[in-house]
């Protein structure tokens, strides 16, 4: 669970002013925060997040309360089928993010309704639908081998991995986030239905509570260990940080990825029964933060600077293997990622009777080879938290830029 940045208090203070200036500057370059474009999508009403824009929503837009995530495998070997599916998904996503059904629920008595109907009458609930492409999509099947970005290198085996192949990888991913779980699930369910004959669900994950804040307007939530983890996350207002660390820019070898990002998903099971018996002092040493306030062990308030040099006697105040130290940009050459994870539970482990619960970690970044992978290699080897967590699933996906408007679809440029 990499922790994001520091340099913190300053950024937070200046966030508003910098953000506004940055957005103006970036607007010209086409890398501003997603804004509505297209004829049928004026400035979104409250409860609506614009679907069309330079970047896909669901990355730098404020993290919603709930997650439904799914990975698909494409079963058809026709590139036309694949594009038609992505086009159909794009239209359905435009509808659902408006709070509208994907099609009629009352067509004729003798045909199944087009929309499954469970979200009828519910508000859009800030639904965002974010789609990505796994490395396996770029094999020989669709003629895309030469379009694979070098940054989409499959994540190598990392220290401490206990990955289940049935909870890992996939040709396509769909991240649906909303403030209403039924709205988020409705999106995944209808996508799966629209995919029949072309793609099948490979795995899916529900998240019941956000563990990150991606806007300065949001409180930092707590993870299932009861800690605020991700205080120093990149925020939507940090336009320059987003350009530096999250959005793919001119450096990419694949033009179709400009304005996109790379999504890393890790299903991190927490051994919470063990954690719950650990004493408070040790828990705080593990994270390097105070449990109640969320302040670093060197400070008093949540957003106080993490002082990695502070010592008490001969020992560092923040232990050398504390999570906050190992994940800090200061110990990682300024490396940052945008975290957007959710707490999950999948009932109990049938073998042990222990709760199967933890963090469904999601991070966005410019290049996982230089961001997530080295960070996790370090955390997986040294993090004191490892005693209480297991990485049980993993996925890497290239998230293309946002859609321009109706008639555009994910990866349209990829197939051109």
């Amino acid at each position, binding site marked *: 669970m990499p922790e994001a940045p520091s340099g913190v208090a300053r950024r937070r203070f200046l966030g508003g002013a910098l953000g506004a200036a940055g957005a103006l500057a970036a607007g010209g370059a086409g890398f501003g925060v997603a804004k509505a474009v297209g004829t049928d999508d004026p400035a979104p009403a409250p409860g609506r997040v614009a679907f069309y824009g330079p970047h896909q929503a669901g990355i730098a837009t404020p993290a919603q309360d709930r997650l439904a995530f799914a990975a698909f495998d494409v079963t058809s070997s026709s590139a*036309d089928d694949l594009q038609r599916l992505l086009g159909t998904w794009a*239209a359905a996503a435009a509808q659902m993010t408006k709070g509208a059904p994907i099609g009629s629920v009352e067509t004729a008595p003798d045909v199944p309704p087009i929309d499954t109907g469970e979200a009828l009458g519910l508000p859009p609930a800030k639904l965002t639908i974010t789609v990505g492409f796994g490395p396996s999509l770029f094999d020989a099947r669709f003629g895309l081998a030469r379009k694979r970005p070098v940054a989409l290198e499959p994540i190598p085996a990392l220290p401490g991995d206990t990955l289940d192949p049935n909870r890992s990888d996939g040709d396509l991913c769909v991240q649906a986030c909303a403030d209403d779980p039924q709205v988020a699930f409705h999106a995944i369910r209808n996508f799966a239905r629209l995919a029949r004959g072309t793609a099948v669900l490979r795995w899916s994950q529900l998240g019941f509570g956000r563990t990150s804040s991606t806007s300065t307007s949001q409180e930092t939530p707590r993870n299932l260990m009861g800690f605020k983890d991700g205080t120093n996350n990149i925020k939507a207002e940090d336009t320059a940080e987003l350009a530096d660390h999250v959005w793919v820019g001119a450096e990419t070898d694949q033009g179709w990825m400009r304005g996109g990002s790379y999504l890393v998903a890790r299903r991190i099971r927490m051994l919470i029964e063990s954690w719950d018996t650990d004493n408070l002092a040790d828990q705080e040493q593990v994270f390097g933060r105070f449990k109640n306030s969320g302040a670093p062990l060197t400070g008093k308030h949540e957003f106080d600077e993490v002082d990695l040099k502070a010592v008490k006697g001969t020992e560092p105040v923040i232990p050398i293997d504390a999570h906050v130290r190992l994940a800090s940009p200061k110990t990682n050459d300024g490396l940052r990622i945008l975290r957007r994870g959710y707490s999950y539970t999948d009932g109990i482990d049938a073998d042990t009777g222990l709760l199967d619960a933890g963090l469904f970690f999601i991070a966005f970044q410019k290049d996982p080879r230089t961001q997530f992978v080295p960070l996790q290699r370090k955390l997986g080897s040294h993090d004191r938290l490892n005693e209480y967590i297991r990485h049980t699933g993993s996925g890497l996906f290239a998230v293309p830029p946002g859609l321009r408007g*109706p008639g555009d679809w994910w990866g349209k440029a990829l*197939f051109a």
Partner: protein
Amino acid sequence: MTIRATSALPTARPTALAGLGLLAALGLTACSSSAGDDGPKAGGDAGRGPSAERRVANVEITAAKGCVPDKATFTAGGITFKIKNKDATAVSEVELLSGARIVGEKENLPPGFTGEFAVTVPAGKYTLYCPGASTERRPITVTGSAATGSTDVAALLKTATQGYGEYVETQVASLLTAGQRLATALRGQDLAAAQQAYVDARPFYEKIEPVAESFVVGQDSIDADLDAREGDVPAAKWRGFHRIEKALFQKKSLTGLAIYGDQLVNDVKRLQKLTAGLAFQPTELANGAQELLDEVAASKITGEEERYSRIDMLDIDDNVEGADQAFAQLQPALQKIDPALTKTIADRFGALDRVIDEYRTTSNPSGFKLYGELTAADKRKVAAAVKAVQEPLSKVASKVANA
């Protein structure tokens, strides 16, 4: 109708699907103007009117105006509708209606994609229908008289229902023969022969299961008498295939089974009486096919059906074959109504057959791997192939109902 030999290892399913399979996927590029141009290709002669003249309507779908054809009046005969969805995210299909009847249609048309369909129509008033559009209906007028030659869809549907009726009768007759062999074996001493007789009889029931299931009169159900699993009915009333299966494959004993064999033969005779000369509706064929695939998805792939013999894959093959046969009967008519849908279903039945074929083996009496030999990945693969047929198949009933 081809009927499979009872115990011999079945070969590929020889239905009307074979020919269509050859027309499979052409790898079109969706960005070009030819994207989605699969309707007429798959449709063969549908819509290519006898006259050399080709009338074309260009239809643009927009969020603002809905479906707009550039031409709304035609003379009778072949008309091609070329459709482009510009930006209407709520619309994904276009139909041509005569009253409530679908004359032709094109699906899978999200914004950014094009497609077309062709029809051959006599004079009359028609409606271009785009469900979900801001203006859903546009009138199309056809005048004059067609040069004729179009085959009547109603006649084709009638042939379909008669053909299916004959198929059902043939299966029930074979079920009776196989049931009598089973009853004979149950009176003997040879357990292996009795197990084989059980395996041989099952397919004929599984192919027409929805027909048998339709006969429920009060407390009396043919399906329960023949096919109830343990616990479905009070223990004292439990008889039929699975009562026999449990004794043969779990207890491995023939003791006391003679009476169940005789009851089974009697129950099949009841079924034969009920199904003799039965008239089916086209929608019943479509729904029956769907029910057979539901059977596969709901209880066969989960291993709930053949708990003791573990020949679930054989049941799956026969459920699919029964569905496939019902669809094949409808195919000539459906080809006229919606060639693209027909091709999709035929292709996917073909793909499903190929998946099932992977589990054939000569080392088991059923001709298939036993349920316990299937991995979770195997089961998911079969289930996904079944779902791929179910989704388009669910649209067939409405098409043949209105035809």
